[in-house]
């Protein structure tokens, strides 16, 4: 596995990750490890009620407790009680209620911040919370999306007079005409349940006035230091130039740290007000209620087709749970799915409607895949149901309708143009790895013998749109920022290289992969390249890491900046070698005069010349560096075929994933080992949605799955070893030929699992299984089907 560093081709090698040694040796610098002299610790009094009037709040008792420096409710905080921003107002008439960091007069979710205490130790701050006097008058909690939309429902926000946040429509073609032509119409309601992005490192934030200037430095366990800086400047009124945001080592995010959280606003404002460092780290219990959640959509989907399996049209009607407030891109998440319901299939029409709904629950927002897992789940599930309805093999139905590899670039009914793809090749490879025919034969045997353990095969042939995103497309969707990415590449006087990126890794391995890209262009060994990131003071420009964008967009910037650096170096080298720039070839990190092997100059030597500047060509500025800011031409469209063999114990409802095969096409792979790691993690997370995870609330809006004893996340012991493979169809709209991979596994795997379970039980009359497919749910589904069949 270790790299024999052949500098010309570091690209594409499974080099071990540079960043892993410090992770494995406990040398990480988590935000909570940061200890600054004079720090005060913030503890938060959170609402135990989902919806209530705050009838009394008196923080004065806390002030008398040992170690307490300050205590605030919304009233005491006044102007400093900043509002949490939402940057994606998806429609002109969207309702955007205020979201103050500390609740004013009312609480709207369990976990709402009511008051804060600042003390010289965490323990003192937590103890003093007990001395705050607070009382509530309960209001009816809005917990059910459909009930929330009926007249007479209690309102989450009185002032906007409805629980409907927005209605978004995208009609493509004439669905009613397709429906009229169809022989079969299959309709289903799927529940894409609420999930909690359970990253390993809890959120943590430290803000400190830096003394010698007006600067406030904020260290936060965030995915988006650059965006956070802009938002904190807008929210707090602290001049942007005085704010520096650093994301130290960040232990996972999955979208949950793509946010400008109320705690970040409070800590920043309080550090400024108190003139000393303020620190807050969430407990796991806080994390479960106060970190944004993901998914939570009711999906009504209808597919119209001919009886021989030609898809004519698709209609999707969503209710998307916003939760109690809008956070950074809460309303936009379902729209990221909107484009993907038609997926890899050709059809004449597609009709999409989404209603965003307020409820007294934790706000939702991006979670690995953000909108596309929901879309992929619904389409891949309904395809299986259509296949069953018309009696066609589900893979045959897919083949009949998918875009063939000769048809790319292909503009889908939803208006996206997929640049490349080869669904046939990925599927063929996956079927061979899976032993599809052998498993189908075993399935038939088990059915015939009435085996209590039935076998099912689940298919998911997915694609997704990632690599967020072309700025003008984002603008058209009313997203208030661009989707470009920046890179500066610097050749230091000693020949070492700094790659300054605007992406912000939190586990993905950017330091290694970005070094490989730069190495392949500059001819400098990977270990001589330092990747600088996640600090607005050191890497001033960037749009950060989410939406599988870092390689797909940031990678292009690294390539472009590296190439520009070579071009500048070429001019200097030509001057030194006394030839014309066009006479030089750049091979393995050195410029060679064509036809004269004795004359050459290495990049490092050029860098030194650029540093001393003793002998530069006229008009060439000293120093050797180059930058590039790239706006991607289009989204990135990875795809693949995932297959799951599911065993279902019909006596208990227990489900076992016996075998999982996936073949992903993520285009050119910079580092296949990292690709495989991303696929593994993503697949595991998607399987977790299918089988284990699900945030549950009671009617009063209490989160029942409020600890990891009840919110089940699988460990390695609960999953088989996945068989992963790849096909390589380079992207033509991305100069490196790469596509995004960060979310693919999580998008693809969920429907494969549920399709497999339904396939195992279809002969018993089962046509759907709710997620998570817990043993009890599966057992009750079987009982209901048997009762129905009688």
């Amino acid at each position: 596995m270790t790299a024999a560093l052949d500098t010309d081709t570091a690209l594409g090698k499974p080099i071990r990750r540079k960043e892993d040694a410090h992770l494995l040796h406990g040398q990480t610098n988590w935000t909570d490890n940061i200890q600054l002299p004079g720090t005060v610790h913030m503890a938060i009094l959170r609402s135990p009620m989902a919806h209530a009037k705050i009838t009394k709040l008196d923080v004065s008792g806390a002030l008398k407790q040992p170690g307490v420096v300050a205590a605030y409710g919304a009233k005491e905080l006044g102007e400093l009680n900043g509002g949490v921003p939402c940057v994606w107002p998806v429609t002109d008439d969207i309702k955007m209620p205020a979201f103050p960091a500390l609740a004013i007069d009312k609480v709207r979710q369990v976990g709402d911040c009511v008051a804060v205490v600042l003390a010289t130790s965490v323990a003192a701050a937590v103890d003093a919370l007990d001395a705050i006097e607070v009382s509530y008058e309960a209001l009816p909690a809005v917990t059910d999306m459909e009930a929330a939309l009926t007249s007479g429902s209690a309102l989450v926000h009185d002032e906007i007079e409805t629980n409907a946040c927005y209605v978004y429509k995208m009609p493509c073609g004439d669905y009613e005409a397709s429906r009229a032509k169809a022989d079969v119409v299959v309709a289903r309601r799927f529940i894409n349940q609420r999930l909690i992005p359970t990253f390993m490192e809890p959120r943590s934030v430290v803000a400190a006035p830096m003394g010698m200037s007006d600067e406030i430095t904020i260290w936060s366990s965030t995915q988006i230091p650059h965006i956070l800086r802009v938002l904190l400047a807008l929210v707090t009124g602290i001049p942007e130039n005085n704010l520096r945001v650093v994301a130290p080592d960040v232990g996972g995010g999955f979208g949950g740290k793509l946010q400008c959280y109320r705690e970040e606003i409070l800590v920043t404002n309080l550090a400024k007000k108190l003139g000393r460092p303020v620190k807050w780290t969430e407990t796991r219990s806080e994390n479960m209620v106060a970190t944004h959640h993901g998914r939570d959509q009711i999906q009504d989907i209808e597919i119209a087709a001919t009886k021989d399996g030609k898809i004519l049209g698709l209609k999707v009607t969503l209710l998307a749970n916003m939760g109690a407030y809008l956070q950074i891109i809460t309303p936009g998440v379902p729209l990221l799915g909107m484009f993907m319901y038609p997926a890899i299939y050709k059809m004449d029409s597609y009709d999409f409607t989404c209603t965003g709904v307020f409820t007294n629950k934790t706000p939702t927002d991006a979670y690995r895949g953000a909108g596309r897992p929901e879309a992929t789940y619904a389409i891949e599930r309904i395809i299986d149901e259509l296949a069953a309805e018309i009696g066609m093999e589900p893979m045959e139905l897919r083949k009949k309708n998918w875009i063939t590899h000769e048809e790319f670039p292909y503009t889908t009914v939803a208006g996206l143009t997929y640049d490349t793809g080869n669904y046939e090749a990925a599927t063929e490879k996956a079927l061979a790895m899976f032993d599809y025919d052998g498993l189908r034969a075993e399935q038939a045997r088990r059915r015939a013998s009435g085996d209590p353990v039935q076998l099912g095969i689940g298919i998911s042939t997915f694609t997704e749109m990632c690599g967020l995103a072309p700025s003008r497309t984002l603008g058209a969707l009313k997203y208030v920022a661009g989707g470009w990415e920046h890179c500066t590449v610097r050749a230091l006087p000693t020949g070492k290289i700094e790659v300054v990126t605007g992406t912000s890794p939190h586990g993905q391995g950017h330091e290694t992969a970005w070094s490989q890209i730069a190495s392949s262009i500059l001819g400098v060994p990977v270990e001589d390249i330092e990747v600088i990131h996640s600090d607005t003071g050191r890497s001033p420009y960037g749009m950060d890491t989410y939406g599988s964008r870092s390689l797909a967009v940031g990678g292009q910037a690294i390539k472009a900046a590296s190439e520009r650096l070579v071009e500048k170096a070429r001019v200097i080298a030509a001057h030194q070698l006394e030839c014309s720039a066009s006479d030089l070839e750049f091979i393995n990190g050195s410029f060679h005069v064509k036809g004269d092997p004795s004359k050459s100059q290495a990049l490092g030597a050029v860098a030194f010349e650029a540093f001393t500047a003793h002998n530069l060509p006229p008009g060439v500025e000293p120093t050797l560096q180059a930058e590039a800011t790239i706006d991607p031409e289009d989204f990135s469209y990875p795809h693949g075929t995932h297959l799951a063999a599911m065993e279902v114990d019909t006596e208990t409802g227990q489900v076992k994933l016996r075998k999982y095969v996936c073949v992903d096409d993520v285009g050119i792979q910079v580092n296949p080992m990292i690709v495989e790691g991303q696929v593994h993690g993503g697949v595991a997370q998607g399987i977790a949605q299918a089988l284990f995870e699900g945030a549950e609330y009671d009617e009063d809006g209490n989160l029942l799955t409020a600890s990891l004893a009840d919110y089940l996340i699988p460990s390695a012991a609960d999953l088989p070893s996945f068989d992963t493979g790849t096909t390589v169809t380079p992207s033509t709209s991305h100069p490196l030929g790469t596509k995004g991979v960060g979310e693919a596994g999580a998008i693809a795997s969920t429907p494969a699992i549920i399709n497999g379970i339904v396939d195992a039980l279809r002969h018993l009359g089962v046509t759907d299984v709710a997620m998570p497919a817990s043993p009890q749910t599966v057992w009750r589904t079987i009982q209901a089907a048997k009762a129905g069949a009688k």
Partner: protein
Amino acid sequence: MIPVEFDYVKVTTIDQAIAALKAGGEDSKIISGGQSLVPVLRLRMAEPSVLVDCGAIDEMLGVREDGGSITIGAATTHHAVMSNPLVQKHALLLAQATATVADPAIRHRGTTGGALAHADPAGDVPAAALALDASFTIAGPGGRRTVAAKDFFLDYFTTAVGPDEILVSFSIPKCDWGSHYAKFNRTAQAWAIVGVAAVVNVEGGVIKEARIGLTNMAPTAVRASTVEAALVGASSAADITAAAMHAADGTRATSDLHAKADYREHLARVITARAVRAASGI
């Protein structure tokens, strides 16, 4: 969260432990491996003023042979218990049940005696202790007493060990019957939805006697006595399945997020049949 402030005392004899409990008054508590107590403290569901650590009392550590029984010190870790040769030879069911507790890290800290004293209805060890007819040695201000398994588990998180008392050890009559602990749960580290601990004496292909403990089917672990009686004379899978149909008789299963009571009862029947078949080889 952070627990409320408390004092911590580490003792080396039973007498010191009893004295420390007494000195601490009502709010004092024993801490063993802390794997159940510390989460409770961190959630501030208990606010003891003093914790008495019994982890250095020799008598409470390790496993020894006592004629027809083996005796296990209450402060012996789950890991030490399940990997002990005496336990594996004479009380295999206990090793089997203990091996399903949580994960290796927790089993290296948590103690089997702590789990028994804690008496979580979803805990795996109590059902095994019941099926193995364990007896418990309890020490208190008034001296020592021995309590049989059937009288030990009283209610949710309540045992015969009084607030001023200590569980010193528990003894298990040597048992070489076939045994199996079947734990039904959703992820490897999760608590049992239902567990069945079975020891079965088979002679000539016929069940002579069976003892079955159920996990999480009542406020405490319970014996499935109707099944035990119905199993006598069983010699086929069908016999076992028929006997196991009584597994939920007399139980008081609760409903929670993972299972409603009726599903627990159904599982108890299915899992009991499977556990008995595995234990008996029939």
